[in-house]
């Protein structure tokens, strides 16, 4: 089913170079970046600081030209203009004209996006509600905190009801409540059938929000796909929680089953590779230990992330 969905964003072999100064060696910021985003999904573009996420988004927004490769959104080359009425963009740490109020800012962007005058007021009121800025709608942005600017940025990206939305670090500057609100908002966008690509380095957001991810480090894509697929590729293991484990039995399990022991007071947690789980359990029962639980260990996104980032080109 999923595989049949249209590809809304297609990026192929992007390269971006930056020359720090005349005569200095140029630095490759993007090195053959390729990935694609399917219709209706929340796609996480994940990587550590300086990996090239913002640069990739700038290429997609037509702000920066790649020296090689191609990028298409909804079938259009990113250098075109008109199709952008279907595209929303929240820049990283956004800044807006600070002499305008939130309402005026949204009206300005709606007008640039070609939203008819008759539809603007209603849509702007709805968005102000969505991003929780109704109370500050008429205050000048000069007086806004970073989190409030971020909310204006999100509203501005949605004001023309785009089909595809690009968010660069959407949670930055937000307090915990704000994060939850924005998370809900992003889920709501997906429920409406829109496609979302979000840049982030916050893994818990990826885990709770994203359908698929691409992991980028040092300008190269290290992994693309769903989180589950990735963890399946690694070695599976289970965590066995036991009570009343004798020292001898523990040593035996470490020796025979390559178990990793972690003490939790009275209780001990054993991490055992999938192939040794049966053997370990029978030895535990034979030694009279009480098995409290056996949980399949799912590689956390964090460990996926770390191994993807560290996985250097040999």
């Amino acid at each position, binding site marked *: 089913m999923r595989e049949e969905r249209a590809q809304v964003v297609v990026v192929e072999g992007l390269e971006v170079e*930056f020359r720090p100064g005349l005569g200095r060696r140029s630095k490759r910021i993007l090195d053959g970046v390729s990935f694609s985003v399917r219709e209706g999904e929340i796609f996480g573009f994940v990587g550590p600081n300086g990996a090239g996420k913002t640069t990739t988004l*700038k290429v997609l*927004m*037509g*702000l*920066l*030209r790649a020296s090689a490769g191609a990028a298409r959104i909804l079938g259009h080359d990113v250098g075109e*203009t*008109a*199709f*952008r*009425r279907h*595209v*929303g*963009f*929240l*820049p990283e740490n*956004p*800044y*807006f*004209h600070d*002499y*305008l109020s939130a309402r005026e800012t949204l009206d*300005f*962007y709606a*007008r*640039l*996006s*070609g939203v008819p005058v008759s539809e603007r007021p209603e849509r702007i009121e709805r968005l102000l509600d969505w991003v929780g800025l109704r109370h500050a709608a008429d205050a000048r942005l000069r007086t806004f905190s970073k989190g409030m600017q971020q909310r204006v*940025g999100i509203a*501005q*990206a949605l004001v*023309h009801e785009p089909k595809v939305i690009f968010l660069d670090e959407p949670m930055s500057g937000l307090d915990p409540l704000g994060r939850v609100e924005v998370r809900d908002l992003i889920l709501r966008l997906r429920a409406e059938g829109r496609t979302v690509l979000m840049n982030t380095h916050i893994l818990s957001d990826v885990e709770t929000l994203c359908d698929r991810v691409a992991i980028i480090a040092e300008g190269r894509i290290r992994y693309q796909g769903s989180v589950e697929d990735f963890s399946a590729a690694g070695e599976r293991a289970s965590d066995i929680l036991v009570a009343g484990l004798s020292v001898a039995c523990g040593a035996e399990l470490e020796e025979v089953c390559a178990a990793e022991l972690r003490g939790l007071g009275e209780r001990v947690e054993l991490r055992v590779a999938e192939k040794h789980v049966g053997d370990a359990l029978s030895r535990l029962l034979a030694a009279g230990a009480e098995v409290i639980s056996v949980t399949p260990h799912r590689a956390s996104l964090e460990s996926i992330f770390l191994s993807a980032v560290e996985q250097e080109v040999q």
Partner: protein
Amino acid sequence: MRTLDQIWAIAQNTLREAVRNKVLFGLLFFALLMIVSGVIVSSLSYVENARILQDVGLAAIRLFGVAMAIFLGIEVISREVERRTVFSVLAKPISRGAFLIGKFLGLTLTIWLQVALMGLAFAAVSLLAGAPLGAVHAAFLLMVAAELALVVAIATLFSSFTTPLLAAFFTTGLWLVGGLSRELRDIGAASDSAWVEGSTWWLHRLLPDLQSFDIAIEAAHGLPVEASQLLWALAYGTGYVALLLFIAVAVFQRRQFR
């Protein structure tokens, strides 16, 4: 239709930003002070006091106008890039050309508004001092407005690709040279060398010929100005502005926003 509305939206927003600029406010204040102080200067002199008053006033309008056009043209456009407000604007379905032309339009309207304010002050002071006020003064303001639009276009061109400091340097330089372009041609014409004569003639043609807009002497003496001269100057100014904006847009379209 859509593009025109986008250009107008940018222009209105630019006007809104520009009129609240503090430096612009300062320049306007000193310009008005100079226009008004002409009354004091003229009261000290016993001959032709009305002429001195108007000389000072007209010179103030033009020079402060140029300062405003250069400062504002560079400040407002480069700030848009520096503060990264362009990122969210250009991600909308608006072309870079429409954005830059909207900026130019908003800035030009702002500057024209200042010219109108200074012109009003000039007229009020002239009436108070009993100095003659005629169509030639209106023509002078029109010519200043045309020249300033050209200066804003030069500032737009340079800020479309370079740093504010360099843009200010180049714009001021081009304005100064543009005021001397006829002298340059005349010196060249007097030369024995055909090469010098030819190249100075070309320079005169290529550089903005700002003396086309100079009717300060006529205005000061209340001399008549031919309508054809004014029309020619306006046509020349319009054409030159169009050329500058064309180049500015071409350059801006290639700009990389890192």
